[in-house]
């Protein structure tokens, strides 16, 4: 394929699932001044209660048609929409190159990042009966989107090309493509995602202990380095059929965070970390579906990593029961 073909111009329709929350009714305001005492909280209630209620508001599907390069990212398209067609369209974005993790959404139903998704890999003809080369109607994107992308050269030039966008599944939608991922961050926090060093520090001649780093050789680093690259974007969580932002499963992202420390030679809290994962929402809740691995933007084989950790949890459980 030549580059000219890759970077052709396409007319693409973005079909966006939109949602505008209903403004709080004045009568339902919880308290007036934000300076109230602790007991009179203006934010009121328990956070979990609000989460379970589907937010009220207006839901509709909106289409935006624009001319873009095949190599443009879907984020580029949405920024163009904001600038030229509809400034009210809401979606999170920041760094634009897959490092900040803020722009996870569902593209054609598949969780992935807006900024790393290319138009050429995600457009599809807008015909309900569209079937692929294999005779089946595609129902999701394959792991390697490039390999199965449409052959743009073979398309009838008049074919309407569509990309469908919706907020990240598994989480409550707050507005348009913005999802409330606080449940994920709460679950990550719950598993104490910070180094609990075992304390083998070198001591200086004068007895100072904080002058040197913990030693860790490259092989020890390699055991957790990839896990430490997690950007907490939520793509794995949105892909997991067990996870639904609720309390039943702590979720792949939180387990990856815990695994990162379990595998860090400097950390001395492996036993308590494994114990935490013995809770019903931990290792046992994972059903090894492995959908979490499909679109990890950092290339972490999430399902395999979880499996490794689950085995450690099981081993720890067996040995604790034996005692």
């Amino acid at each position, binding site marked *: 394929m030549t580059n000219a073909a890759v970077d052709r111009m396409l007319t693409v329709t973005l079909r966006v699932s939109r949602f505008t929350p209903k*403004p709080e009714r004045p009568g339902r305001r919880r308290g007036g001044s934000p300076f109230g005492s602790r007991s009179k909280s203006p*934010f009121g209630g328990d956070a979990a209660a609000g989460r379970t209620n589907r937010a009220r508001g207006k839901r509709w599907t909106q289409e935006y048609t624009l001319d873009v390069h095949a190599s443009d990212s879907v984020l580029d398209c949405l920024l163009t929409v904001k600038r030229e067609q509809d400034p009210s369209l809401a979606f999170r974005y920041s760094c634009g190159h897959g490092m900040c993790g*803020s722009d996870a959404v569902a593209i054609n139903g598949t969780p992935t990042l807006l900024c790393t998704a290319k138009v050429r890999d995600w457009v599809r003809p807008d015909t309900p009966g569209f079937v692929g080369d294999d005779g089946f109607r595609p129902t999701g994107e394959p792991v390697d989107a490039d390999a199965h992308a449409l052959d743009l050269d073979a398309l009838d030039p008049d074919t309407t090309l569509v990309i469908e966008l919706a907020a990240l599944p598994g989480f409550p939608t707050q507005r348009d493509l913005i999802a409330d991922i606080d449940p994920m961050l709460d679950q990550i926090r719950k598993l104490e995602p910070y180094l609990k060093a075992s304390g083998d520090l070198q001591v200086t001649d004068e007895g100072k202990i904080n002058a040197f780093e913990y030693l860790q050789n490259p092989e020890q*680093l390699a055991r957790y380095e990839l896990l430490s690259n997690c950007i907490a974007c939520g793509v794995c969580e949105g892909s997991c059929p067990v996870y639904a932002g609720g309390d039943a499963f702590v979720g792949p992202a939180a387990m990856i965070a815990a695994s990162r420390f379990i595998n860090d030679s400097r950390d001395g809290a492996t036993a308590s970390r494994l114990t935490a994962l013995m809770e019903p929402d931990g290792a046992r809740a994972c059903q090894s579906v492995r959908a979490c691995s499909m679109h990890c933007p950092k290339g972490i084989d999430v399902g395999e990593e979880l499996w490794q950790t689950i085995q450690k949890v099981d081993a720890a459980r067996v040995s604790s029961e034996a005692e």
Partner: protein
Amino acid sequence: MSPKQLETQYDVVIVGAGAAGLSASLGLVRSDRFAQMKEEGRTPRILVISKLQPLRSHTGSAEGGIAASLGSIDHDDWHWHFYDTIKGSDWLADQDMAEILAKEAPATVIGLEHDGVAFSRTEDGHIAQRLFGGHTAEFGKQPVRRTAYAADRIGHQILHALWQQCVKEGVEFAEEWYVSDLVVERDGNGHTTARGLVVIDTHSGKVHGVNARNIVLATGGAGRLFHTTSNSWDLTGDGMALALEAGLQLEDTEFVQFHPTGLAHTGILLSEAARGEGGRLLNADGEHFMDRYAPGHGDLAARDVVSRSIVAEVDAGRGVADPKDPNGPKDCVWLDLTGIGEQTLKEKLPEVCDTVREYAGLDPAHDLIPIKPTAHYTMGGIPITADGNVYEWVDGSRRIVDGLYAAGECSCVSVHGANRLGANSLLDACLFGSRTGAAIANAIADDPMAGVPDEELIDVDSTAVDDAADNRERGIKALLQPANADADDNDSDADNADDANGGAQTDDNPYRLMADLGALMERHAAVRCDHDGIATALATIDDTLAPRAERLHAHSDTAAYNQELTAILEARHLVTLATVMLAASDAREESRGSLYRTDHPQRDDERFLAHSMVTRDRGVAWQPVTITAYPPKARQY
């Protein structure tokens, strides 16, 4: 995450949750004075407010490393780091501050390692270090491996480790809250005191006044002033603009570092390694032009030299258009990697090749790559002391603003001067951020009002903050009205402007405005400038962009998650900041570091060995540079 309720008054509010804001938080809560206050039953009330969830902060995009004379591999000495920093700054850094930076760097990096950063390692388990431009041994004699790194993800590692430590310490965050106003009060003697902030909770669109006895601004840089930037979309100079709007000064805003090889159209950095491995820069005629500008150094000359040479070629009509926009401006040159060979590209430059393939749809082994200089770092910012105190430069001396602090890229303690040395920015943010946190711990420990129970809180004068919050609430309400709803027949100026600009202007939006501002700044102020270009840019802002910013309205009247509302305030911040940046560039009639005045091409130590101190009215005062160890010399590499 948002606080369940706001306190009557906070002892400390930190704005921004990147490396600087998180370091300040940790410096504060880990200090002995803080622990002592907790023991005494008066735990200080602290809140970190950030417009992004902390893990989204732009710190996470830093790739290269963090400099410290650890000597893991090569013998090193902090004096050499000290000297390199000053030389890199083109002798505009304050040398007492650069000394702190170099001296405390090793402890800072060790501290980050203890916090969990997954540094790359030497075989024997120490923190690995690598070469970086401008870092030398024995005062410029030979390159030294001083930059600690974590593959090409040091920023990600530091950001996540600092956030994790804040989770451990139970630091309270207000995430996706946007600060719209900084409230400071000035008494009859001109003495200023920070009172609080006005913030918008973007989840609901509600405006809150936040009373605070101490405030840290750690909001990051302002790369979005320029169309082509390596910065995230959120780097809109908010903290700097807040300081200006509160009547305070900014220091050395005319210095913006441009990285020479940003991928056209995106501004994403292509590492210097691309040229290190043999990549060549070509103009429209296919000429390998760098030999003409920097004989002996060629494509590997210093960043600012290469950036200026590229722009000079473009200015001379030898630029090329971005293939994505073939009819657009010819403001790029080619980066030619085709001579390197596919195998070497794969082994030595995998990241560069990935970026080019991903974001330009080009194959580096066969295609020329369009590049142009990309705005990377703002050296200037809110003037601070070694402990992070914000000050005003008045009548030849520093006057502290009570209760106001700053840290990181939005601040200027002046360790970077006119040009930042690579791997010194994370160091600045973490090191001076921690110092600021510790300094605030000392200040509040001596403050009898800090941490006392609500019922003992007396004399909380929230009038100024309440007034500002009421004002802002009215302003937000107006912004949420449709654009035509408030057409004012008496406002003939605005009407005329609308007519002159045609119908399209009436449906203006902040995203378009920011794009236009970025293009204007890029044309007249990026990499090089002169008086006439600056005057043109200022006139365009005053006549067109600033009035447009004032007329903006949101296109949805739902306040919750109304991103356009925030974008309008960001656009106004950028417009304000652009005017003072241009004014300071105009006032400095010399070329130094990253600032190149084509009408004043020489450095002029007689007149300008000084920091510019600019206010919102564009007045510029000059603060002499502190020189303790190394008198200015010509900067040669």
